């Protein structure tokens, strides 16, 4: 049996993290499954637990000039229903898990869980999301692609807590989110794909693409994106095969119980091809 801490305030949570080695639990939708025991017994947590889902300081959604700030404790369902939420994030949330899971699971949890198949992640990557983490004496703002370093691995330190995420609030001419899964609800993605594009005077002015569940991390290649900035729509369509070839190197899926590597790679590249051809 482990010890559990239920702090009254956010400050108290940071204090506890400064003094103890703790596993932070918010909604628990991932951790309660990961550490599941036999029915009737306590979950097999290895570390003392810090409960944070009740902390009101982390439960907010606010719109600022060019960004949306979402507290780490906001449930996925609340994000889905907020008028401030970006269209593409709503699209991902609508087919994520089920109402019962979305009522508990949090945005902070989906990020810190750092699953390559995390449903919000491809969208958060293309929207240039930043993660705000705090400890008792420090605050860091980290781009999401630097925050997540591998499956279930982030650079969050033992004494730090994710406080909020900052999402770019920008509209795009072309936006897409696709999820391939076995069952519509509750399925863990076999492949997910998010892309946004802006056109200015029939030239590509902004182009961002990300893939989920096709490697240890979400794939977003900014160098490849730069190569199409400034080209015309016709040129972009002409470059379609080349772009797919370039991305092919970065799409390195695995075989597992949900799908095969060969299927994942083929479908990921098909989604990219279809997206490029949709830009007219």
């Amino acid at each position, binding site marked *: 049996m482990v010890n*559990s801490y239920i702090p009254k305030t956010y400050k108290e949570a940071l204090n506890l993290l400064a003094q103890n080695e703790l596993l932070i639990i918010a909604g628990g939708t991932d951790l*309660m499954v990961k550490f599941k025991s036999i029915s009737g017994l306590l979950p097999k947590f290895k570390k003392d637990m810090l409960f944070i889902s009740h902390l009101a300081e982390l439960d907010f959604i606010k719109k600022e000039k060019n960004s949306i700030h979402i507290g780490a404790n906001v449930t996925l369902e609340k994000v889905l229903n907020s008028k401030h939420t970006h269209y593409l994030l709503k699209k991902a949330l609508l087919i994520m898990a089920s109402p019962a*899971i979305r009522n508990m699971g949090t945005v902070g949890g989906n990020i810190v869980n750092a699953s390559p198949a995390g449903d919000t992640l491809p969208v958060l990557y293309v929207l240039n999301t930043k993660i705000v983490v705090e400890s008792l004496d420090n605050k860091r703002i980290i781009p999401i692609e630097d925050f997540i370093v591998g499956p279930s691995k982030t650079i969050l330190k033992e004494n730090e807590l994710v406080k909020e995420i900052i999402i770019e609030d920008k509209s795009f001419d072309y936006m897409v989110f696709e999820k391939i899964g076995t069952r519509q609800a509750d399925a863990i993605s076999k492949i997910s794909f998010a892309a946004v594009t802006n056109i200015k005077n029939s030239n590509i002015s902004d182009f961002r693409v990300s893939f989920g569940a096709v490697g240890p991390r979400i794939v977003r290649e900014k160098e490849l994106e730069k190569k199409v900035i400034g080209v015309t729509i016709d040129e972009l369509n002409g470059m379609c095969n080349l772009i797919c070839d370039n991305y092919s190197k970065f799409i390195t899926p695995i075989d597992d119980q949900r799908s095969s590597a060969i299927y994942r790679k083929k479908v990921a590249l098909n989604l990219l091809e279809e997206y490029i051809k949709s830009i007219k």
Partner: protein
Amino acid sequence: MAKIKFTLNGKEINITIDPTARLLDILRDQYGLVGVKEGCGEGECGACAVLINEVIINSCIVPMGTINNKSIVTIEGFSETKRYEVIRKAFEDEGAVQCGFCTPGMIIASESLLNNNPHPTEEEIRIGLSGNLCRCTGYNMIVKAVKTASKRGEGLW
């Protein structure tokens, strides 16, 4: 161990308990609320669904440490309401119950949906029930039952 305060089917409860204990186990073992079923135990089948602060949640993955000051309503508590009567009758009339194991969760999902959206479209009903598995009915009768309940329960939600 920690002191947790919550309301269970309208009654105030104060208990000292391990905050990592599953709400599902506490409801069934300590309070005898066995209408709350355990199916998958991983949040994917919805058999253990309860209402927490009026929305559907899977009690198999809820640690007790997260329910302080919240209101929990199980199928037993909900069965004392008029809304339940309407949903129950609609489930009976549409043949939405076969083996019955998923039914408490399905009824909780129906209530959570109708409470938020009293006149759902068929698609909205299917999304509302999407976290609940039924291996008998093929779902169409359940979807129809929710539609019927929505019509008959005009003004209740």
